[in-house]
């Protein structure tokens, strides 16, 4: 059973978003995403200072088997990246919502956080995708 914390926001492209309450959010990929990808061996992160639009490609995560794009769940400016992932991408498998975070964004429009899916909405989207 995959873990989908209720306090996070989601996109159906498998990113999670945690509101840090200071105008920034932390972004990562979901437990479902890491589990589907399998052993992760490579990540490309955005650079600090990058300005991202909603849905813009913000990196790549590659497992042994497949490459998957990571998108910006909301618009904003990258203020921090998790450099530990570049050396040890397997952290994402071990701790997708903790040490496996990808980057932090200063959000352009806080109202956009209201567009995110909640945990149930995300799980419904996953179910729909699996049904194809």
């Amino acid at each position: 059973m995959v873990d989908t914390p209720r306090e996070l926001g989601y996109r159906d492209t498998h990113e999670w978003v945690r509101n840090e309450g200071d105008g920034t959010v932390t972004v990562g990929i979901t437990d479902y995403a890491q589990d589907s990808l399998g052993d992760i061996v490579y990540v490309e992160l955005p650079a600090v200072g990058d300005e991202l639009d909603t849905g813009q490609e913000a990196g790549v995560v590659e497992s042994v088997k497949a490459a998957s794009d990571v998108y910006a769940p909301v618009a904003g400016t990258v203020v921090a990246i998790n450099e530990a992932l570049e050396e040890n991408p397997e952290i994402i498998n071990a701790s997708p919502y903790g040490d496996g975070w990808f980057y932090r964004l200063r959000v352009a429009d806080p109202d956009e956080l209201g567009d995110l899916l909640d945990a149930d909405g995300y799980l419904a989207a996953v179910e729909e995708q699996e049904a194809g």
Partner: protein
Amino acid sequence: MSRRTPLYDVHVAAGARMVAFAGWEMPLHYGSQLQEHHAVREHVGLFDVSHMTVLDITGSGAEDWLRLLLANDVARLQAPGAALYSAMLNERGGIIDDLIAYRLESGYRLVCNAATRTRVNEWIGRQARGRAVAVSERTDSVMIAVQGPAATTTLCGILSRHAATLEALAPFRAVWCDAWLVARTGYTGEDGFEIMLPASAAAACWRALQDAGCRPAGLAARDTLRLEAGLNLHGHEMDEDISPLEANMAWTVAWEPPSRNFVGRVPLEELRRKGGYQVLTGLVMTQPGVLRAGQLVRVPGTPETGVITSGTYSPTLGHAIALARVPPVAAQQALVDIRGRHAPVRIVRPPFVRHGKKVYN
């Protein structure tokens, strides 16, 4: 509706992630494909390969017919138990399938791919028409691969009565251990065996091997292992528009005697004479990133592009490797287009890994 092997329940109980593959429900991995990969390189792994298509060929015309059907020559199989690897070509010299042909007391056994099953059965059925041969598919058979440096001691442990025979078994030889046909073959680049046995014995055999220390490994590890070993996969390195010359399989074509007019021989000889065809080679990228099938390859000195046929992260080497079909120029370096970035790679001769060690230069 996908088919299930007799080991399906065993896989599910072991926590396998099952996936649809070539009409079968097969284990992709049992938790970590990397750990399964390392288990095969360092100790011993266990694979259910019952999805492979097994065809028994009997009849007085079996040898003559197979000498026309296959690009390798079964006349080289001088005694029961001998086996060889061969391509089966269409009239254009393209590869319908790659297979292992075993000579048995009763005739021959072909072990073909799962993904090509429909096409192979249709082709073989057509080619067999009017010949003194009978082709029967062994839909009841189970095939288990035991692969890794500890494969021999482990298998001999559960087949102790046959231990001396199995220890002495040469590569590409098979022997009957009672009702089990045990072959010293595999798809990993390690020592190992492939066991064909009755479905009724499958689960007990699997459990005995697992209890003896074999780690179950799925299709995902099977793919990284075969790629490190530089072994082709049909649908990637070869297909019906690719000849053995373009798939690094010239060594499997028996040109002698010239009178053996196997299917595909004429166009293949013409291609060999003309030359200039693309060749299958190995690529190594030590910088971060992963090479993937379909990425374009540029080699110096020609506008012609090549393409990666299979690429992966190599768990043994810790960086990306690939097989690629490239223009026939002498070059040691190439550039691969990875999402618009031109990544430098080295061109090497596969295999990449054998018996747990890096082997390319």
